């Protein structure tokens, strides 16, 4: 659906659901995934529909992903980091008691 306007000059590699994605340094996770043809970022807890970015400016929360070590984040507001591991947002997480 989306094409990069320019060739990747400074590649950054990260994993999405175990698959390696190559992106441009400075990309947001959302931009990198869309450029790699991924549109299904998460499954909506309300109705189990497939969801992906809508606004790309941090407003709609449709782009939620789960970043290893950070947890639930908006993919359009986080930059790619070499070696990071990202998964689809798991839907309704069961909150745990805090110590």
């Amino acid at each position, binding site marked *: 659906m989306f094409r990069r306007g320019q060739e990747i000059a400074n590649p950054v590699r990260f994993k999405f659901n175990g698959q390696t994605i190559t992106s441009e340094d400075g990309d947001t996770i959302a931009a990198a995934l869309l450029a790699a043809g991924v549109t299904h970022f998460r499954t909506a807890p309300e109705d189990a529909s497939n969801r992906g970015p809508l606004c790309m400016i941090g407003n709609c929360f449709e782009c939620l992903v789960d970043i290893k070590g950070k947890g*639930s984040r908006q993919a359009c507001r986080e930059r790619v980091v070499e070696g990071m591991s990202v998964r689809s947002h798991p839907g*309704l*997480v069961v*909150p745990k008691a805090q110590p």
Partner: protein
Amino acid sequence: MADYDVAIVGGGLLGSAFGWGLARAGARCVVFDEGDNAIRTARGNFGLVWVQGKGQNMPAYASWSLRASRLWGDFATELCEATGINLQYVKGGYDIAADEQELEQTIAGLKKIQAQMGGAAYDFEVLDHKVLKSEIPLVGNIPGATYTEHDGHCNPLLLLRALHQDMQAKGALYRPNCPVASVNPLSGGSYQLLDRSGNVLATAGKVIVSAGHGSRRLNEPLGIDLPIRADQGQVLVTEKVAPVMKHASSSVRQTDNGSFLLGPSSKDVGHDTRTDLKTLAAIASRCITIFPFLGSLRLQRAWGALRVMTPDGNPVYQQSEAHPGVFSFACHSGVTLAAVHAFEVASWVTDGVIPAEFGVFHPRRFNV
């Protein structure tokens, strides 16, 4: 003959409940509302159907809230059957105390109301930490809560939508983006509603001024005094998580879709709906004391909205003496009172008189 039996100024929670109640009773009515840039408390509230603590300084308000809560189930069911919109109404609510002192104050307040109301009708339970934890395992190390079946929560945006949809289905005309600039009494006892340029928007036999913070401006030229001010409340919204609590508490509730709403604060800052970090941090901090796990959730958004607040916090229901077809109604807790506004107050207007037992809600009480 006037175009309408009743013209309602303001399509917020009050006006919409009146419009629905009147249309349901067969009255010809029109509801004038502003647009998306207006101050609209109906779109910024916390969604509680709440009785606990209401009316400490006026027993009539405690009974009135209780009556509203008793009617709320039927109200929600009727709206759902008519529109297909489930208001997500859940009965039962906690007032959770963050510390011992809060708990003592809450209990003392409820006992006072209970004594004023003659006991039995105003029942509540005190839950200690252990009992509360057995009901909501994620609760923190806090002393406990009070609980009553009379409290509850709903989705207030769906309430507003259902009222708008069904009052129109029942024949009322809803006119958004159509501010009323003045109400002009005519010699035959009916009224003209005019826009800013002096064009006649409608004529009506009776008028309800329920325009929230816009009401004073309409009332003044008619000689109606409405002592209200804005009390700002800020609310925080978290990301959605699996169900933790079914029942609301007065400061934390989980919505049907899994988000937590935290708040609301209370501050007098005039007509200012902006949020500020200090207020939001104070809300978050208290809520995290109650539910420590909230500290690990991401916040999605925050907003501020303006309560319509009378000097004693209790409703104002009045009929103009000089212009007896004009009613001016204003109150906080428009979600809670929606059921009595629709089922009972609407008929005061068709009858043309506020029943004597509700005389306590006249603003003359502020002038003694």
